[in-house]
């Protein structure tokens, strides 16, 4: 008798979902498994590129392509919004009326902006003097605004954490500094960086080593500012504890939330992120649901590099799961971010759950070619090259020369890590291959 086909359903065909589709298409026995992917958008956006659009470095054609181009040959997707997941029945209802049964479900629907969460943010100044740059429309509208803006108070505000790509607002500030200098109006632009965090960087080690960059670039830091509302008439940000910041032009990073169906399905936390095991990427509530990328609640950066490292771990664990084995692959929180600092230079940071960013060379000790926690031209070229690698290697699920586990090679360690007995690469590999 022929064995019945099983269904693996991927919700979301963005960075994480597309990578999982490509990896699982290779890894699964397709005579037994049917792969199904669902997304409401046919266009794939290269989100890291949005940052460059307001400054005229990239335009729309640099950051959009058809999703299906990155799928395995012959694969298509179901183009629909997701209405509801019913975990008790292993079932997904779509807005277009289709119902999907799953044996394994992967949630990869990311995070989205929710400017409506903040009073006054989408008021009469929205897209006139208040812009975001995390959407293509927002970034394009800001590019138009910058063309004619002749200076004043530019405020860059993070409404609340967590946000995707936590370094992007800082990169925006650095690029704005360089952009207005080039335009010859830098002295007319007062740049303020207003954040709910205690420091400009999410990682304390970065703040320690790179903190002076803000001052050097004439960017004023307003820390521990939790935006409560926007006064459109007075053009002010007002914090929950009644502090005020005036603006002429506000570049906002609104609250980030998971997809609406997560809430409808009762799968999420208060921001619709799915409670997920930070090492195995299995959902806490349901054993046959796995979560990847921005959709999780794990304490790692919401960034493409993280989704990429997770995809390798998750592929292994899905295979373990369907063979009824323990989920042996462990995600360590590895993130790797280029931070554009303006004037053709960038920093690079590499860290995980336990190890803060450290100086050194990357990915090879002594050789680099990239420098960690240092501003170099090579890092900037790395950032630009990354767009090519994203479209051509990463999305297609091919290997990059950087493993999912963070390596301590080439890093100049603080005493705390040395004395704490942090292990070397070789030890780590031995430990991992020996099973956990």
């Amino acid at each position, binding site marked *: 008798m022929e064995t019945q086909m099983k269904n693996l359903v991927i919700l979301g065909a963005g960075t994480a979902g597309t990578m999982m589709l490509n990896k699982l298409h290779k890894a699964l026995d397709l005579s037994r498994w049917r792969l199904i992917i669902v997304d409401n958008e046919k266009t794939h956006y290269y989100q890291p590129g949005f940052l460059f659009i307001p400054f005229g470095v990239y335009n729309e054609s640099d950051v959009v392509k058809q999703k299906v181009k990155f799928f395995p040959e012959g694969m298509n997707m179901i183009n629909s919004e997701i209405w509801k997941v019913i975990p008790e029945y292993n079932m997904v209802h779509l807005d277009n009326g289709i119902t999907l049964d799953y044996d394994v479900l992967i949630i990869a629907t990311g995070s989205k902006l929710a400017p409506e969460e903040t009073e006054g943010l989408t008021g009469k100044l929205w897209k006139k003097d208040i812009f975001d740059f995390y959407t293509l429309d927002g970034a394009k509208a800001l590019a138009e605004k910058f063309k004619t803006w002749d200076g004043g108070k530019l405020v860059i505000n993070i409404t609340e*954490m*967590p946000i995707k790509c936590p370094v992007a607002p800082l990169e925006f500030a650095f690029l704005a500094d360089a952009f207005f200098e080039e335009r010859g109006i830098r002295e007319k632009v007062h740049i303020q960086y207003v954040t*709910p*965090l*205690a420091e400009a960087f999410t990682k304390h080690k970065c703040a320690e080593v790179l903190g002076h960059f803000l001052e050097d670039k004439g960017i004023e830091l307003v820390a521990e500012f*939790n935006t409560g509302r926007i006064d459109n008439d007075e053009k002010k940000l007002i914090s*929950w*504890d009644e502090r005020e910041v005036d603006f002429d032009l506000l570049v906002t990073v609104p609250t980030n939330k998971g997809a609406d169906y997560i809430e409808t399905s009762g799968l999420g936390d208060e921001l619709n992120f799915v409670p997920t095991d930070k090492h195995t990427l299995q959902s806490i509530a349901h054993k046959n649901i796995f979560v990847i990328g921005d959709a999780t609640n794990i304490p790692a950066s919401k960034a493409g590099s993280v989704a990429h490292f997770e995809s390798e771990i998750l592929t292994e664990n899905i295979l373990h799961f369907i063979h009824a084995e323990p989920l042996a692959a462990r995600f360590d929180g590895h993130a790797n971010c280029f931070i554009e600092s303006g004037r053709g230079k960038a920093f690079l940071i590499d860290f995980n759950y336990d190890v803060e960013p450290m100086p050194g060379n990357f990915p090879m000790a002594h050789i680099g070619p990239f420098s960690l926690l240092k501003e170099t031209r090579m890092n900037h070229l790395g950032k630009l090259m990354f767009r090519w690698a994203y479209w051509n290697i990463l999305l297609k699920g091919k290997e990059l020369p950087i493993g999912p586990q963070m390596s301590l090679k080439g890093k100049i360690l603080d005493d*705390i890590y040395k004395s*704490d007995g942090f292990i070397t690469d070789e030890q780590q590999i031995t430990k991992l291959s020996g099973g956990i």
Partner: protein
Amino acid sequence: MSAAVAEKVILGKTLSIDADGNLANLSDWNEEIAAELAKEEGIEVLNEKHWQVINYMRKVYTDTGDAPSIRKLTKESGVDTKELYALFPKGPAKKAARIAGLPKPKGCI
């Protein structure tokens, strides 16, 4: 529970603290220590509302292993956002977690 990186003397007791300056061991905490931690945060006296939030945070931490975010606090502690900021200026989730003897909430990444 988080990794101890230093020690600190509070009320004559030597306590381990983590990289964020929060207590590393839940068991080191008591109400007197909380009052001292509050003073370090500029809160001279902990009133009934402060305790409502602190006790709620400790309960969530015991139940889930994570200190609640500001959003969860607003939704479930019975104290609204505005008042939370009045009680624990600048960063209610972070400050209340510290005073409650818990690690910094995960949302602060």
